[in-house]
């Protein structure tokens, strides 16, 4: 079994023997089978692999949207795999910033309100502080001039930049991006990737799921998944070739 090797000692995320099993009727599907992985603070990691390899499941667990079936998951040196919903909500809100493939902006809220939304879930944050953060985040992604627009009034690339601003506004420990360019044309896709690169340069920790090798190469480190397991790049090529042969 291959292991994703940490490149830094200062681990933000540490995962050991992580498994996720789905049960549908009487069928047991092993989406993740003993994943070992570490992500250091300030690192930019890309998780890649073919469709159905478990990338999104892994990202959901990393983002505390889902719970693992087994194994250990430590975030900021704290075990988080067995937290209750309220605790997971609090950590998601304060430590994790999400960027989704389909942006997931709320259509009835303005750009400003969308970015402000996660901050409204934080108790004790003043309106002034919220405004400062929203303004900063939107300025950071170059969307400060579209505060009062609704998502439907923006292009896909602009919507994704607003989504990045929303993820940044809470000053999370890590940005989790799930195929952030999947719904964008190549020009907008590249612009978003450029934005992520800049954020990383400024110190952000990023974990991105992508199936596009061009964008995966932009990360500092690439983790390859195949059939719910971490494999080396060489192994991945071999397994995929074998699969293609079998299909033929």
């Amino acid at each position, binding site marked *: 079994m291959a292991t994703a090797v940490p490149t830094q000692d200062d681990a933000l995320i540490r995962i050991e023997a992580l498994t996720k099993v789905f049960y549908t009727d009487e069928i047991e599907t092993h989406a993740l089978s003993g994943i070992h992985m570490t992500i250091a603070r300030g690192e930019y990691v890309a998780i890649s692999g073919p469709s159905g390899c478990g990338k999104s499941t892994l990202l959901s667990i990393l983002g505390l949207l889902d719970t693992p079936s087994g194994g250990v998951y430590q975030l900021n040196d704290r075990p988080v795999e067995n937290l209750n919903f*309220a605790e997971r909500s*609090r950590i998601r809100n304060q430590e994790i910033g999400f960027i*989704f493939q*389909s942006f997931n902006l*709320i259509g*009835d809220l303005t750009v400003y309100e969308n970015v402000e939304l996660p901050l409204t*879930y*934080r108790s004790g944050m003043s309106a002034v502080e919220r405004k400062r953060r929203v303004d900063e985040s939107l300025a950071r992604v170059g969307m400060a001039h579209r505060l009062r627009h609704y998502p439907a009034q923006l292009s896909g690339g602009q919507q994704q930049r607003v989504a990045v601003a929303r993820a940044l506004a809470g000053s999370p420990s890590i940005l989790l991006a799930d195929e952030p360019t999947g719904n964008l044309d190549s020009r907008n896709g590249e612009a978003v990737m450029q934005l992520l690169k800049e954020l990383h340069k400024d110190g952000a920790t990023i974990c991105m799921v992508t199936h596009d090798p061009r964008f995966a190469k932009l990360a500092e480190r690439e983790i390859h998944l195949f059939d719910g397991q971490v494999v080396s790049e060489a192994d991945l090529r071999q397994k995929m070739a074998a699969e293609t042969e079998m299909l033929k």
Partner: protein
Amino acid sequence: MQSVWNDLRYALRQLRKSPGFALTAILTLAFGIGATTAIFSVVDGVLLRPLPFPHASQLFALGDTLHGVTIAGNGQTVAPPEIPVYERTMKTASSLGGYITTGFELSGKVAPDAINAARMGASVFPTLGVQPLMGRTFTQKEDDQRAPVTVLSYATWKSRFHGDPNIVGKTILLDRRPYVVIGVMPRGFEFPLQPGQLNRTELWVPLSLTEDELTKQAGSWNFPMVGRRKPGVSLAQVQANANQAVGTIERGWPAFMSGLQMTASVRSLQDATTASARPLVRILFLSVFVVLLIACANLAGLLLVRAIRRQRETAVRLALGVSSRALVRQTVLESLVLSVSGGLLGVALAALLIRVSIHYLPETLPRIQDIRMHPAVVGFGLLLAIGTGVICALAPAFAALHTDMNAALKQGGRSGSAGGSHARLRSALVVAEIAIALVLVVLSGLLLRSFQKMRNVSLGFNPQHVVLASYSLPMHQYGTQTSVDAFNHELLRRIQALPGVRSVGLASWLPMSGSSNHTGFVAEGYTQPKGVPTNVEEAIQVEGAYFHAMDIPLLRGRTFIGSDDGQAPLVVIVNRKLAEHYWPHQNPIGKHIHIGSNQYSGLPITVVGEVADIKTDAPDAETSEQFYQPVDQWVPSLGKLAAADDISGNGMSLVVRTAQSPAAMESAIHAVFHSLDPQLAVTQVETMQTAISDTEAPRRFNTAIISAFGIIAALLAMLGIYSVIAFTVAMRTQEIAIRMALGASRTGIRRLVLASGARLAVAGCAIGLTAALLVSRLFSSLLFQVNAFDPLILMLGTVAVLLLAIAASAPTAQRAASIEPVRALHDE
């Protein structure tokens, strides 16, 4: 036609695919249409349907309106000497006659029983235009000669005489006098048209006005008249003609009536019969119609949801070139399939409802026997179903026509923006539902409060442990004052001797009986205001320990004693209201009154006692001014007003206060009457509590039925809120998942959903409150001691509806809080 048939088949297929939806929609409509149809049958039977007489629109009711005087039935009756005058003078009428309801003791070959009857002028039957089933009706000669003949009702002939085919010519005993049956009226004939179901007239005898009635009862307005207009004559012409007759009548008045001002009152018989019931029936119909509106709003909402869910299908149809007309036709057809199914079920439900509930209708409602599922009522139900179907189709048709084809096709029919605009339409429907429901809830609250106020009204006496019984001694056997007095004294003695009896008395009129007797009244030392020619007050003759038996508090002086008989000085007891009216802030004891008028009065009577006011009618009716006399002194007190054959105490009610259960006393009372006179018919043997309950029945009915509509409206509105919130949450599942992904807690999500329900409720309540304020004036005639704008009721109603709305949102809020964000996001 083929395309309509195809659309219909498609609609049926679609409904078969969603049996839950179809069942909910059909049942909602069946309930709404059923209730509306059932209430419409009341409207139809009571108000709309022509009276059961040929050319009923030509019939009119005639009465006198006395100005400046308060008497019962003002405008509906005439005095007996006027009847021949009107009959002679009214050239605009082809026929006209007077009548009066009465009671008889029916005996002979049947078990003795007290029955309702009517004395009718010989011209009344021809006026009504109904031929007898058997035999004939009275001739004028029989009326003039006071012939002892009678015409039976169909029900009486069937039930009491077992449908004897040879009944005509046979003799029956009425008040123990022989009467020959000369005819039987057909099934369904009823006259006078009495409210309720219990007071049906069982037989008719000639009016045969007595000499005393024709000469001495010019001031006794107790006889209604009915006439038929000549062809081409309007009601206004009849009215003018009647006013001419009034001039003749006034010229014949005795001197003591010279100050009275009178006009004739002519109304169509239909109007006169139904006038009192009109407000109640209208409000019933309005209430049920409101419930139907809410049901329609719910169905429109459900259809709208289906339309939104089928946006992709609609978009595909549009892409394939469907016309707007065809799209609307399909939507309307689907709605019609539901509404007509609901309508058919509703009509069946209405038939069942009428059959079951007819016995619970209040006795104040006229023409109850006409409330049936007539073809017109069935037609109304089906028309309502079709109308409902078309109206309910409007919202989904609008949604279908405004489908964003591009967005729906691209997004697989899950276009958020289109759903959003339709959801707003649906929200508007729910806001309207809540508003309407609040109006009904507020109205229910006002009626409940009125009912509570009525229950709290002090009756002025203690109704607990009191048993009542009424009787009327037949003149044939009790033709003298001595025989009547002997019966009454012996009755009191025997009842008093029964175990458990605390006190017993007799009264000519009982509280809560719905009957009273008003008499001209003069108070010495009282200056009559200008324009008020005569005082008319409620006169009650009593005997025995009546005040003790009723537990009416004595405020001053004394009650009657055994020595207050016909030879003793004349005495009277007045109630507080009367004393305050005639001798304000004075002690009435020792004051004198006379029966009659200033010009024409009886002997002076001394006030010896003052008692508390009692309610003689329903608790919510105005308390009247009352005076009590001993039975033995009534005729002597009339002085020269008395007729030689005047008898008092021959129609009385017994009041027994008992230490034991009053219900247990009833059989003992029957036994005493039987031991005194085995043939005497005793009626209304019941507890005072039952009598009071009967008087409360109309208000109880109003309150119960409108409260029921209020509750149903609130429940339907809740269903509406539930469905709109559930639908909204379903549309917002992804948004909720995003919020959760961004850190929203489950409590926060719950709050979010509850707030959206509360927002709809607040909007609905704001509109509903305004509407309630606007329409509450319509209902003020049904309220008692409660302001139509009662702030407490308005506030409680609003809070109740708000809480119900939040409660209706709670299950959805819980479901929303249980959304697993990861699944919702992956399902995207």
